[in-house]
Structures are given as structure tokens and as C-alpha cells.
């Protein structure tokens, strides 16, 4: 079942990779002084990419079982080592792809043309979009690794050059953490290919080949660890999170939308795509440990969020707490848990992007992100307060909004897999309600009204929040739309 069929023979996925790059190339040619033109170019290329991704979303065939990829493209790349250019979409990557397009567009929309060296800024955002798209599409492990690493470069510069505070330190901390993880993954990639080559007789780095030839349990355990390290750092899973409170606050908000909203989810995506699919035995061994760490992450993130004064840090820790839910869902290793995690990945991307946007708007207006200095913002800006309230409720998982669906499924999965952890996660939900409502109440409701009053939301700002709000509401009301698309893939990955 699908809404329509896209014409075959068109390299849709390559096109999705190229569109932002073409935009970047055009930006490169534009004179640095033409900031308006550069911004328009950035928006245009991000918009076209999003449209293409939505086209793919609509043209995706729901239902066919097994590990079937759609819009597949296979070409030789380094044939002597069995490395290929293999792209494809399945239920795991489909919605993240669209989220990627959406957040990249939002980042472009809120990018301020008065930023110094704006041209390079836009350029790097577009390159980042290609890299994140590539991570989602690549089915060859080397190709995946190339995109995974390529993602680092624009992020490093976006933080190190346009960031706030100790930006170079922040960029570098982030880089070192992720690179250590990446190299562990690289070794695991080489190892899994070597082991499979010993079984099949010819070297291949193709996911679809590797997934059919699982290695021995011991080797799987090690390789699982290699991959998990890379993805756990990126998510981050406790205790590999300590780069997060350094890097997130330093990141400029447009880049942060993609960084927090999407890049962290790519870690979770990797855990499902590679750790669960390629190393089922490894996942059985390590699953309980990682699920425990994820639960610790939920509580730790939530408690830290309660302690924060800086709103950006508060959202950062809230994000970590939510990612703990996703990790718990993944390592429940049942259909409920993984599907819940997938849904929560989309929801979390939308909600966190929304929260960071709100913080950004508050900071733009009041010049501060300190929770203690903000109060009574509802009276001057009721619309602002209302929109924020919706996002806040979604963040704490209110039924009827999108945050609920994912968390509920994850809890279901966790209850069947690890009961004590599910109880711990439940505690996390309560804490989430606490820190989210305190954030909202403190900044908006408290009297007396702050002297430097908040100005009401402008139309373009509503425009930036609107798609996020739409998703929050629609996904909350019709959640069934989502599992239908991903169910077959999840079952195939879990081999159930």
C-alpha cells in the first residue's frame, strides 16, 4: 500500500544527497556580502530536499515483509574490497529522513543573516544535511562510516566558529568523544566484514549481505561493543554523556536543531540498524546492561534537568533523559519497544527542536536564559505561552499528544523485558512532568510580571513552530499511521 508510485529509474536517493550539496555549491559561488541571497539559497535547497523526502515518504510501499529496501541504488565503488555505493530506504530510516529534511529547513529558516561569515555558516549546514541524509540512506558499512564521520566536520566548525562561550573547547570535546567511538566502530566494521568473508569466500561490506551471515557469539559480543560505543556516544547513553552539557550550550541554535533533534537520533538509528540486526547474539548479551544504562540515563538526565538554571542546559538534559527512553525501548528487543523507540525518535526530534526554538526565542527577547530571571511572560505574550505549553505537554508525554505514544509503547516493551527498569523509567516520566511544568510555570505563569516584558510572537516565528506543532498534534491523534510503515522492518530486524 502506498499513496502513489514514484517513477522507477530515477536515482531518488542520490538526488536527496545531491540537492543540499548543489545548494552548498551555489552558496559557495555567491558573494559573501549578499547575505539575503545566501539565506534564500539555503532555504530553497533545504525546502527542495524536504519536498523530495516527503515524496519518498508518500511513495513508500507499506506492508511488504522482510528486509526489503525501496528506492534502492547499488553501484560499484571499490570493487576489489567489496565496498559498494548502496543506498536504500526501509521502515527504520523513512521517517527519520523526513525529520532530517524538516529540521534542516527549520535551521535555515531561523539562521540570522547578520551572523558573521554567514555564507560559510549556511554552507556548512547544507553539507551537514547531506551527511546526515547519507547516514540514514547508506547500506554499505564503509559508505555509512564515511557519512558518519563526514557529519563531524561541519558540526565541529559550526560549534567551534559560530558557537558561544568556550566554543573551541566544546567543539573539541565533542569531536574527541565521537571520534573514539567512531574508530571502535571502524574496527568492528572491518572485523564483521572479515568474518563474513571467511564464511562466504568473498569480501563484502554490504549490510544486506552481512545481515545474513551472523558471526559467532563471542565475536558478535566484541563487534556489538564496537558499534555500540560509537552510537552510545552520539546519543548519548550514560555514562558517555559528559560531552553533552559542554557541547549543546555552545552550539548555535540553528545547528543545535539538527544536532539535538536529529544527530542524537542517528545514534539510536545505528543501534537498531547495526547492533540489533547484525549482532543478535551480541544484543542478547549486552542488551540488559545497555538497557540498565539507558534507564540510569533517564533518571540522571531528568534529575540534572531539575537542577539546571540555564534553560538551554535544562533542555539538553531533558533530551538526554528522553534518549534514555529510546535506548530502553531499543534494548527491550521486542516489537513494542523498538517501534516505540522509533516513534519516540521522531517525536523527540520534533519536541526537542521545539523546546530549543522556544529557548532561543526567549533569549532573543529577554537576553537571558537563566530560569530565575524569567517570570510572568504569559501576560504580554499569550500566543507564545500557548504554543510553548503545547510543546511542554508533549515533552512530558501527555496522552493525546505525540510524546505519549512513543513512551507508552516503550514502557510496554520494557515491562515485558525488564520490569524493574520499566518502573525506573516510569519514575522518569514523573520527573519529566516536574521539570517541564516548572520551566513553563516559572517562566510564564509566575507573578509579578517581569518588567522587561516579552514581545509577542512574530508571524515567521509562528511559521517556524507551526510544522512542529502540527506533527505533535497529528501524531498524537493518529499514531497508528506510523507503526503500519515500520512494523514489517522492525519484525524483520528482530527476526520475530
Amino acid at each position, binding site marked *: 500500500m502506498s499513496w502513489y508510485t514514484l517513477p522507477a529509474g530515477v536515482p531518488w536517493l542520490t538526488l536527496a544527497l545531491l540537492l543540499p550539496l548543489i545548494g552548498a555549491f551555489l552558496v559557495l559561488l555567491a558573494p559573501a556580502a549578499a547575505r539575503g541571497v545566501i539565506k534564500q539559497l539555503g532555504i530553497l535547497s533545504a525546502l527542495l530536499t524536504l519536498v523530495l523526502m516527503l515524496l519518498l515518504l508518500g511513495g513508500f510501499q507499506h506492508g511488504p515483509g522482510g528486509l526489503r529496501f525501496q528506492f534502492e541504488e547499488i553501484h560499484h565503488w571499490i570493487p576489489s*574490497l567489496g565496498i559498494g555505493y548502496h543506498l536504500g530506504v526501509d521502515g527504520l530510516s523513512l521517517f527519520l529522513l523526513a525529520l532530517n529534511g524538516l529540521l534542516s529547513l527549520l535551521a535555515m529558516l531561523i539562521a540570522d543573516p547578520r551572523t558573521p561569515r554567514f555564507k560559510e555558516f549556511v554552507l556548512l549546514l547544507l553539507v551537514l544535511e547531506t551527511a546526515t541524509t547519507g547516514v540514514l540512506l547508506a547500506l554499505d558499512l564503509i559508505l555509512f562510516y564515511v557519512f558518519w*564521520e563526514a557529519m563531524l566536520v561541519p558540526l565541529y566548525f559550526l560549534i567551534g566558529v559560530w558557537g558561544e562561550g568556550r566554543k573551541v573547547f566544546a567543539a*573539541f570535546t565533542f*569531536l574527541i568523544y565521537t571520534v573514539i567511538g567512531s*574508530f571502535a566502530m571502524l574496527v568492528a566494521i572491518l572485523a564483521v566484514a572479515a568474518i563474513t568473508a571467511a564464511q562466504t569466500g568473498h569480501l563484502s561490506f554490504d549490510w544486506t549481505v552481512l545481515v545474513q551471515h551472523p558471526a559467532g557469539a563471542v565475536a558478535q559480543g566484541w563487534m556489538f561493543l564496537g558499534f555500540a560505543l560509537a552510537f552510545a556516544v552520539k546519543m548519548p547513553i550514560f555514562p558517555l554523556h559528559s560531552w553533552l552539557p559542554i557541547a549543546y550550550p555552545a552550539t548555535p541554535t540553528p545547528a543545535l536543531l539538527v544536532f539535538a533533534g536529529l544527530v542524537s537520533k542517528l545514534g539510536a538509528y545505528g543501534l537498531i540498524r547495526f547492533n540489533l540486526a547484525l549482532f543478535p547474539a551480541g544484543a542478547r548479551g549486552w542488551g540488559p546492561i545497555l538497557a540498565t544504562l539507558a534507564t540510569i540515563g533517564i533518571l540522571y538526565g531528568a534529575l540534572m534537568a531539575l537542577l539546571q538554571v540555564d534553560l538551554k542546559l535544562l533542555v539538553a538534559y531533558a533530551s538526554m533523559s528522553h534518549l534514555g527512553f529510546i535506548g530502553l525501548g531499543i534494548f527491550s528487543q521486542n516489537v513494542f519497544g523498538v517501534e516505540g523507540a522509533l516513534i519516540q525518535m521522531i517525536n523527540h526530534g520534533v519536541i526537542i527542536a521545539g523546546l530549543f526554538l522556544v529557548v532561543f526565542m526567549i533569549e532573543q527577547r529577554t537576553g537571558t536564559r537563566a530560569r530565575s530571571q524569567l517570570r510572568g511572560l504569559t501576560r504580554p505574550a499569550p500566543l507564545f505561552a500557548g504554543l510553548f505549553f503545547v510543546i511542554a505537554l508533549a515533552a512530558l508525554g501527555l496522552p493525546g499528544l505525540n510524546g505519549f505514544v512513543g513512551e507508552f509503547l516503550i514502557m510496554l516493551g520494557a515491562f515485558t523485558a525488564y520490569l524493574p527498569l520499566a518502573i525506573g523509567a516510569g519514575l522518569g516520566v514523573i520527573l519529566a512532568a516536574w521539570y517541564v511544568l516548572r520551566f513553563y510555570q516559572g517562566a510564564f505563569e509566575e507573578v509579578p510580571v517581569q518588567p522587561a516584558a516579552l514581545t509577542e510572537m512574530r508571524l515567521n516565528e509562528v511559521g517556524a513552530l507551526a510544522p512542529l506543532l502540527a506533527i505533535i498534534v497529528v501524531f498524537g491523534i493518529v499514531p497508528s499511521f506510523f507503526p503500519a510503515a515500520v512494523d514489517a522492518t522492525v519484525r524483520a530486524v528482530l527476526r520475530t
Partner: protein
Amino acid sequence: MIDTSRLGIDYGVLLPELVVTATALLVLVLDLLIPPGRRRWLAAVSALGLLLALLATVPLWGADRSAFSGTVIGDSFAAFFDVILLSTGLLTVLISPRFLRSLGLEYGEYYVLTLAAMAGMMLLAAATSLMTIFLGIELLSIALYVLAGFARRNLRSQESALKYLLLGGFASGFLLYGMALIYGATGATTLHGIAQFVGASGSSVLLLVGIGFLVVGLAFKASAAPFHMWTPDVYQGAPTVVTTFMSVATKAAAFAVIGRVFVAAFPTIRADWYFPLAFVAIVSLGIGNFVAITQSNLKRLLAYSGIAQAGYILLGILPGSSEGLAASLFYVAAYAVMNFGAFAVVTAVETRVGEGGTEIPAWTGLFYRQPLLATTMTVFMLSLAGIPPTVGFFAKLFVFRPLVEAQLWAPLAVAIVTTVISFYYYLRVVVVMLTAPEEAGRPAREPVSRVMGAILVFCSIATIVLGVFPTVVFDWARTAAALHL
């Protein structure tokens, strides 16, 4: 009457070397004839000679022509290195005139010596006998000793030459001693004869000591730790164009010998040479990457980076397989492109700024003064660090893969940890170029010379294109690594 046809005389095998040597002599004579103001033409003649030599390598691809009683060979391996060396030499000659003029060093001898060093290096790539190996090493070393001290009136350059000469002399001594012991142990000087003997009767203490000394001598030339002490001082003191040439070409030539000797001549006793080579590789990675962090001079930083890169190249030799050797060859090619580029940028900056131009603080905000230089430098730094999509990434990937297959976890682990560390100093250079005191008197943009600009763009495009499509060069490397003796 002596039958000359039985002497194995085959000048075709040495044609590239002969063309380069003839060019050197021609330039020497021309230098005597033309007025000093026209010495730029010497660069043109040298470049032409190198191009001809490049053409002369074509028949060597796929050939297997052992000549001169088994002392040299014309094969894909030699051709692969000839192409790398000649391209490096060609680009060096092209960027030299302007730099030399800026230092008042426009002498014809520069080109003669560069060409002589080239001839020595190419001989090394073709050498299959201990004698020709020594001949090649001496030819390139003596020329480089003089080149390192080419800025005669500069104290640092003198220091550089003297250090290089003294330590190089020691290394040659070790090398020769090692060769003598190997000859004593096996009774042969050709690699073919040695391989036959070793294959039949295995190793002996004498042979192993000989191999140990050989490793010392070659590691010195490849500037691998712990025989690297000279590298930072010599690199820093030598005129930057010389450093550019030396850092790339000497290392390539040294690895040509290491590859041929260890993978082709001693494959049967890999268990014996594995440990010393692994030790050299691990120490190089450690020292190179750690010490580079503390450097404040770009030439010294790149010197330590070069030491570390030597470690990565050695990793490919360790498994003793032609797969690994192919990876090392690819790494050498990648290293040639990216390191030449990096040093060329240093040359360009120094041409503008003067001697202080190699200090890192002088690079602050280079992005806004010299966007071309800074952008290309960024590409080279990312590539040296091994971040995709640059050729440096695939170089590391290809080298790591045989290690995983051979399950050599210790060197691999060291390589990975130190690679992570290397990100710090490579990216620091980029960050320095990006952090701009924009308001404080922005110096006017000075254009980079057209030749330099073209070469930098060429190198950075090559770095990226090879990082996206490494197949062609990798397949060449695989052809070259399928060695015969």
C-alpha cells in the same frame, strides 16, 4: 671478446633514472651558460626533464625486467614509486623559483641537487640488491645534505644541514653494517639470492642482527621513531621548499625499500622481523602524534606529523602480505598528495610573510586574508587526520583492514588511540586559521602566485577526488604490490 649481452645490460629499466640524471647534467651546464637573471628557465628545463621521465615509466607498468645481474628491476612497483616521486619532484620544481627568489637563493645548483636526489630515490624504488640500495640512499642523502643547508647564510639552515649530515652518516653506517652482516649470513647481495637462501635455510642470529641494523638505517631515512631525532630540526631549518620535497619524497623512497626488502625478500621469516618493525611503527605513532601537540611551529608540527604518518605506512607492512603492502603503497601516494599540499601552503605563506610565517600565531585569521591558502590547508589537515571524504581516510582504512584480518590488535589499538589524539593538532591549525581578530587591522589580501595557486587547488582537489574515488589508485597499488623479485 666479451659477450656484453650476458651482462644483463638493459638501459630501458633505468630509463626514468637516466632521463633525470641527464637532465641534472644538462641543467648544470646550462647554469654555467645562462645569465643569472634567467635562472627561472632552469626550473622549466628541470620540469621538462621530469615530465619526460614520467613518460619513460609507462613501459615499466606490468613489466618484470630484472637487469644488471639482478641489481635493479623494472616492474609496476618501481613504476608506482617513480610516478609518486616524479610528480612530487615536478611540483617541487614548479613552486621553487618564487620561494627561492624571496630568500635570494636563486642558484642553479638547487635544481641539479634536487634532480640528483630524485635519481637516487628512483634508483631505490628499482633496487633489488643491497649494493644498489646503498647507492640510491647515498645519492639521495648527499644531495639532501647540501639542499638542507642551501640557505647558507641562515644559521638554522646550517644547523639543519650539519645535523642531517652527522646523523645521516651514522644511519648510513648502520645500514652498511647491516648489509654486510646480511651478506655474511646469506652469501648474497641481491634480494633474490637472499630470499632463496633464507627460504631454504631459515634465519640465523647473524641475519637477524643484520636485519635489525637495516631497519635502523631505513627507519632513519623514513624518519620513523625512535630514529627521528633529526627530523624536526632539519625540517624546520631547511628552506621550506626543500622540506616539502624531503618530507614527501625521501619517505616514499625509504618505504619503497622497506616494502621490497621485507615483503619480498624476507617473507618466510616474518615472525622474526615483525617485532622490530611493529615496535618502530608503534613508537612512531606515539611519539609523532603526542609530541606534535606541543609544537608551535608549523614546520615542526608537520615534521612530527610526518613521523606519525611513517608509523601508519609501516602498519601496512606488518602483516607481510601483498594486501597490506598495497595498503601501504596507497598510503604513500595519499601521503605524497596531502603532505606536499600542506607544506606547499607553508611555503606560500612563508613566501609572503617571511621567516616568521611558519610560526602558528602568524596563521591566525588566515581564512580572511588568504582564503585559498586557508581552505586548501583545511583540506590537507582533514586528510592528514583521516576524516572522510578525503584520501587520508581511505589510506587509514586500507591500512587498518589487513591488520584486522591478520588480527594484529596491538598495533591497531595504538594506531587508533593516537589517531584520535592527532585530531587535536591537525584541527588546531584549522581553528587558528578560522579565529580572526577581524577588527584589528586586516592586512590587505595578497594574491598567491598563479602557479602556486594552481598546484594547491590541484592537490586539494586530488585529495578530495581520491577520497571519493580511491579505486583507480588503489588498483594501481595492488598491481604494484604483487611483487616479483
